[in-house]
């Protein structure tokens, strides 16, 4: 996984609440067997009309926000399905940090597996950042220091220490868990007392 440490870039505001994973990446693009190439379909129905022409009014279709590396969004971002295609699409577009008041659980979790940093801040600060975003400013994120700076304003954010550690170092969860293989082995040995544990064959 790509590590995340510092990031500076344009921030785009999409101030709607409950932006769901179908809106982030619609189902017709889930047929892929790859993780890459989804960026052009990010927010597909907001970005393109029915004839596949760009919808000029949408923020990510306008300069300078078409270069956005960070988005600030409404409450409960990423609700709906478990599709990891949602963070893949964001990342492929070039967005690796999302700021909101809250995220849906599965989406939030999926972000950390892909080097995407979701930041939770209170409503007042999110509104402030959203207003600044509309001016086309850059924002700087520093994960190590857990802070973001925009227009000389500094905001601190909270993050789970383990997730921070993994993001900073680009660590793969599976590798870490497999270091613990013996613990899993001994757990499984104890399972033999549950004689119903293994499913009968199909």
């Amino acid at each position, binding site marked *: 996984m790509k590590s995340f440490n510092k990031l500076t870039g344009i921030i785009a505001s999409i101030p709607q609440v409950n932006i769901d994973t179908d809106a982030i990446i619609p189902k017709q693009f889930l047929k892929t067997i790859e993780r890459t190439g989804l960026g052009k379909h990010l927010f597909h*129905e907001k970005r393109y009309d029915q004839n596949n022409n760009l919808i000029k009014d949408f923020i990510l279709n306008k300069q300078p926000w078409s270069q956005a590396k960070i988005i600030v969004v409404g409450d*409960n971002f990423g609700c709906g399905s478990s599709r*990891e295609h949602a963070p893949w699409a964001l990342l492929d577009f070039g967005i690796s940090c999302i700021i909101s008041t809250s995220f849906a659980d599965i989406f939030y979790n*999926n972000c950390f*597996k892909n080097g995407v940093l979701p930041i939770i801040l209170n409503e007042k600060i999110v509104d402030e950042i959203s207003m600044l975003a509309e001016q086309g400013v850059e924002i700087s994120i520093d994960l190590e220091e857990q802070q973001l700076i925009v227009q000389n304003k500094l905001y601190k954010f909270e993050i789970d220490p383990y997730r921070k550690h993994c993001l900073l170092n680009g660590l793969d969860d599976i590798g870490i868990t*497999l270091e613990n293989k013996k613990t*899993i082995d001994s757990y499984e040995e104890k399972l033999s007392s549950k004689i*119903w544990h293994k499913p009968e064959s*199909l």
Partner: protein
Amino acid sequence: MKKTLFDKIWEQHVVDERQDGSSLIYIDRHLVHEVTSPQAFEGLRISNRALRRPDLTLAVADHNVPTENRIDGIKDNIARIQVETLEKNVKEFKVPYIPLMDSRQGIVHIIGPEQGFTLPGCTMVCGDSHTSTHGAFGALAFGIGTSEVEHVFATQTLIQKKPKTMLINVSGSLSIGVTAKDIALAIIKNLGTSGGTGYVLEYSGDAISDLTIEGRMTLCNMSIEAGARAGLVAPDAKTYEYIKNKPMSPKGEAYDKALEAWKLLPSDEGAVFDKVINIDTSLLEPHLTWGTSPEDVLSINDVVPNPKDIDKENLRNAMQDSLDYMGLKPGQALTDIKIDKVFIGSCTNSRIEDLREAAAVAKGRKVADGVHAMVVPGSGLIKIQAEKEGVADILIEAGFDWREPGCSMCLGMNPDQLKPQERCASTSNRNFRGRQGRDGRTHLVSPGMAAAAAISGHFVDVRKFN
């Protein structure tokens, strides 16, 4: 220390407690489908890792599959490649698989219980948010992303933070025509789509005990629509009866031993939950959604809400946007809303009980002119049962389109989609914009309400048909 059902399952599955407060938990059952698994299998190959427990894994293709002319194969090349990739992967990693042309094929959350793969007290995951369905058996079941699918493949565990618990006490008997779907919609209306975030829900109370296992699955299925990754119902005699003699469930002595363990699972009297809410269903009416979020719920005899009544500007604008998208006017009676399509299916409502409910309404009646009504059974076995029982004949005679099993128009990954501005009475779980097809308009309802709308050509109180 008195424990909740969730506490008991959690404790039994902790492999390791980590310093940061998260736990490594063991996964007893892993369901796999074609859409969220290819990158995970590929990850195993790239890292040269084995799939640790194929015997605890079960795969089926459901999201992408056609529901008609299946014998001709999948016409969409990209979709076909995805299904073929699954077939190749299950072969390579020796994962038990139900092929597309097998009568047991169906929606992953239908076949888990149907095959006896789902058991009380087990931890269960799938790269699909509606894995919460299996909570109906008292299994801790939740959806995961593809990276976590790979993690389970490689380690049979997951790193998880212990969620909080919420007890949802549901009391009061349901009037005829009011179903588990209406309870689910009422709960989502109450909690909102993020009210359950960070929680595991436990549904309890006499209204839940009275539900069939199918009804409990419908209810647990939609826990994710309230933001909760998992919903639970304590196992009881109905659960044990349902599981008995299913192909993959324990037999003989193993079943007896399992039963002893399962009976210890229900929450202890006086166990403490982080949050408790109470819902009385005795006056519950059939529900439907009017907007583009599953929390946009009203009773059938209500009218379309007015954005002017909303104080907060962003929420007022959001409501107006939803009404514009849905093509609705404030104050319009819900029973005046005409429909173009009906979809009876999905992991929420495609079980035999759901099809019977639809058939009871459709019997001796005809689908209204101009309405296309589709029934997609949850599995091949359900389809066969409905055909044997005469349920299929009733629906076909009424003019319903009787299809092959799969996820179908719930998410429209296959050709079953709404056209722009088409309005659908759907028994599925999400009314998001574009979910069933670009610019399509989805109203979530129970199977009975969907059938009643099909017959009437507009939404109507299903109780008028009883």
